[in-house]
């Protein structure tokens, strides 16, 4: 019997369930190939592996930074084109973000985006109508104020809106207000983050924390419990909904698009990683066959999903396209745009410094316009 072809795959994902299942089914169908999975803690280790004398054939990464390196991965579009109908099946929103300079360095995985999940029980208890996609930021704040309940000590037992303090999570609101953190070519933040549309969006957001106090402020005591408990509305990535479904709590929730901002743009962010074939792979053909199987041919990966499928047929075959909650997420993929952290590494690397300043805006009231102007130093 001839020796098996070994495909070495390195990933920085912690949950390997889907990958292990794909390996098992692929090796069953292709007994001549063995998939060896290695884990790395971060992009740095993945890059070291790529530069080592034993580079992996496939690198899977939970971000996009590595896929921006020219020459590190092979373009997968020719492989996609070998599959009849696949170009048209790939979600156009995802492709718009994933392709750079007309090439596709990896097949997107771990695709997620945020919508607003609302707790129907809390809305019913307050006698409030559920929001619909045509709602505005102002209307959302009005609901959030009515859904925020504080006890006699001022400690919230229920918050109107649940969202963290992270520059990335504020970006879709900025996009929807017609602003952007960095230029379309990703080269600079000058003339972008310092513009009025961004400042206006930030003012509204920071007021929600600081003035209306409908969002838990950093360090604020809370008796509202977890996001699925004492929060009227939640900035809900796909994995939040996945958790609701998994724990049988989904009936209590509805989802709606992000509110319309004064700038009236229809836009949203997208998170995704990718799995790509390295330019150093000694077995690019079987590596592609595995990738195709792993990412494009397994609707079972989306039967209990926490992320979104990359093709229309997977959305349909997995049942997500018709699911009460998931269908809204699949539809939202039409609106996604590339975020600043995908386009500009300096911006991406500065996120914690930027978050410290966002926190200061919330807690100390530092001047928004001045702070945003100073962020031109980050990109």
């Amino acid at each position: 019997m001839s020796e098996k072809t070994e495909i070495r795959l390195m990933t920085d994902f912690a949950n390997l369930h889907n990958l292990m299942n794909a390996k098992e089914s692929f090796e069953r169908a292709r007994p001549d190939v063995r998939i060896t999975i290695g884990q790395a803690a971060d992009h740095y280790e993945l890059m070291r592996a790529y530069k080592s004398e034993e580079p992996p054939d496939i690198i899977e990464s939970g971000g996009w930074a590595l896929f921006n390196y020219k020459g590190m991965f092979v373009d997968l579009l020719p492989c996609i084109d070998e599959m009849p109908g696949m170009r048209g099946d790939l979600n156009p929103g995802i492709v718009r973000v994933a392709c750079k300079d007309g090439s596709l360095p990896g097949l997107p995985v771990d695709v997620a985006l945020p919508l607003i999940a609302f707790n129907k029980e809390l809305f019913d208890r307050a006698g409030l109508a559920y929001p619909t996609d045509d709602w505005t930021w102002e209307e959302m704040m009005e609901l959030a104020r009515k859904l925020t309940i504080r006890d006699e000590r001022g400690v919230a037992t229920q918050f109107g809106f649940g969202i963290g303090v992270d520059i990335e999570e504020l970006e879709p609101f900025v996009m929807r207000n017609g602003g952007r953190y960095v230029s379309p070519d990703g080269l600079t933040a000058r003339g972008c983050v310092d513009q009025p549309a961004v400042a206006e969006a930030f003012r509204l957001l920071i007021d929600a924390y600081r003035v209306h106090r409908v969002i838990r402020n950093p360090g604020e005591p809370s008796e509202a419990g977890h996001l699925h408990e004492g929060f009227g509305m939640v900035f809900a990535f796909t994995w939040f909904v996945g958790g609701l479904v998994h724990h049988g709590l989904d009936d209590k929730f509805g989802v709606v698009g992000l509110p319309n901002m004064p700038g009236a743009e229809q836009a949203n962010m997208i998170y995704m990683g990718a799995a790509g074939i390295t330019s150093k792979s000694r077995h690019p053909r079987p590596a592609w066959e595995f990738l195709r199987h792993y990412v494009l041919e397994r609707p079972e990966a989306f039967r209990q999903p926490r992320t979104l499928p990359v093709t229309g047929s997977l959305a349909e075959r997995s049942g997500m396209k018709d699911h009460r909650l998931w269908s809204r997420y699949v539809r939202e993929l039409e609106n996604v745009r590339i975020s600043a952290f995908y386009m500009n590494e300096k911006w991406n690397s500065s996120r914690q410094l930027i978050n410290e300043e966002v926190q200061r805006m919330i807690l100390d009231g530092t001047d928004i316009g001045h702070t945003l102007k100073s962020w031109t130093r980050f990109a």
Partner: protein
Amino acid sequence: MYGNGSEEARTAAGQGTEASEARESRDLAERAKFGDTEAFGELIERHRKRAKGWAQRMTGDPHLADDIVQDALIRAFLHIGSLQDTSRFLPWLHKIVRNQANMRLRRGGPGRREKPFASFAAPTARDRVDWDDLDSVLHHLTRCAADAAKTDHDPERHLLRQELYETIHSVLHCLTRKERGIFEAYFFRQLSPDEIAALYRMTTGSVYTYIHRSRRKLRQEHIRVSLGLLPEKGENAMARRKLLELPEWPARDAVNLTFVDRIGHLLAALEDRRDLSELMGLSGFAFRMQISDKTTFADGIYMFDWRETLRTLMRELGYETTLLCGQLSDSPVPLLGAVERFPVVLPIEEAVLPTIRQSIDAGRPVLYFDTSAARPYVHEWSLIYGYDDEERTVRLTDAMRPDGKTVSYEEVADNPVRFLATFRRQPEREETAVRSETSAQTRLRAEAAIRSAVAHARNERAYRPMTVYLSYTSGLAAYDRWIRHLRAGPASPPNRYGMGQLAAVYAEAKKHAARYLRLVPLEGEAMRLTLLASEAYEQAAEAIGAVSAAVPFARAAEMLSPELCEKCAKLLETAKAFEAAATGYLEKAIGYFEKELRA
């Protein structure tokens, strides 16, 4: 109602802004005083526009204002060491801009100082300084620094500043106006070559050429000679080298936690050898445990505020710390939870080499974060103990290479994590050895370490990265997180490599905790309880040691079997029970300290 609230909040915001701006500027100016170019770059970024406004109001000419600001900022950088009160940075900068503008208005016309390299010559009269002439000022400052270095009992700071003057001098005054602008953008403002290219409407390749040319000019030896700066004895002026002899540091003396290990080695090199259990205890690392919320990656070991932790520890030990830190954005960076809080910097050799040379020349190794550590490590703290300008290399330690290794200047500058620290004895402790402290002081120190150990054990979020996507569990709760990873089932197998390092590091840390507690100078019931805690830590160490024996610290791709995971989980349950008991004993011991304090 909300409108009013918002208005009030914004008024308060305005006041808060000014206060926090002033505080930040003061901190940056303080760092810039020590030659931190990144901090100075940020100061420029913050105040350039304001400075241009001042200059433009005086001259009415935006182009002239740009030139004035550029000169003023260079002067500010040169003089910042003399700024007594760093909270007065802005008024001080204003004064410099005003002087520059007045000078320009008196003399008229830009371009006076743009000289070809060949026309650059040493000043004729040694004692005459033309304070309106930047060349003359630079010569004067360089000479002063050189003179001070010869006579001062501690010439180190003067040598550093001299090197700085020389660098700026030799580069700026050989350059055309355009080259100067590019150099300033690259060096001070930390713009990337792409951005500079866009700014000057030129290709990125040309920017590199300009920068390269500037650097080449800098390296011309006759600049040094023309300034009358003699080389140190026995050294070549152009290419210096120095190699420190580090004291022996056999494996049996080392600890797996390289942050503490290298500090121990460094102190030994400074003839201040410490007991490693004492260092582990005083630093708190004997009691720290932190696990990633994702899986058993080893990054939890490295998640703490590097700058603050190092400064605090070294201050306790009687040393002042000078830090250079940053991250590169054009290559993947490890340990984002800690490192993303560093400023983004460019891979410029001039930003790091003077610090290394200065410290080595003074006989002190440099603490350095090495991202090319030999396997099974990926990155670790090391000591740079030599440099060679001719070979363009530094010599540094590596946990897996007893004889050390050589790394090029380029690799040091290209290290995606810039973290270099140099140390000097606190002036007030120059004459007095730290260990001559009184027994009362030693006891207070031990009590503080015990309080900190308990606080850490009870704090499940000791370190919070400023981002929602990274989180770590610490203290006793870290055991639960670790056990949960081990019992997550086949869908989420624990990371074997990280698990090996976690077990090796934490088993040893608990051993040091036990030993440290045996050595503390307490008495009576407090000591009895502390000894009981020591015994419990010993047991915890033994249980984690068994995990370490089952999952050794080595690179391995295979997954841990469910049986092995369960075995390790049970061992960790045992370890947790012992450490919880140890924490309980220490809490009771603290009760006795406080009772004594009240009495």
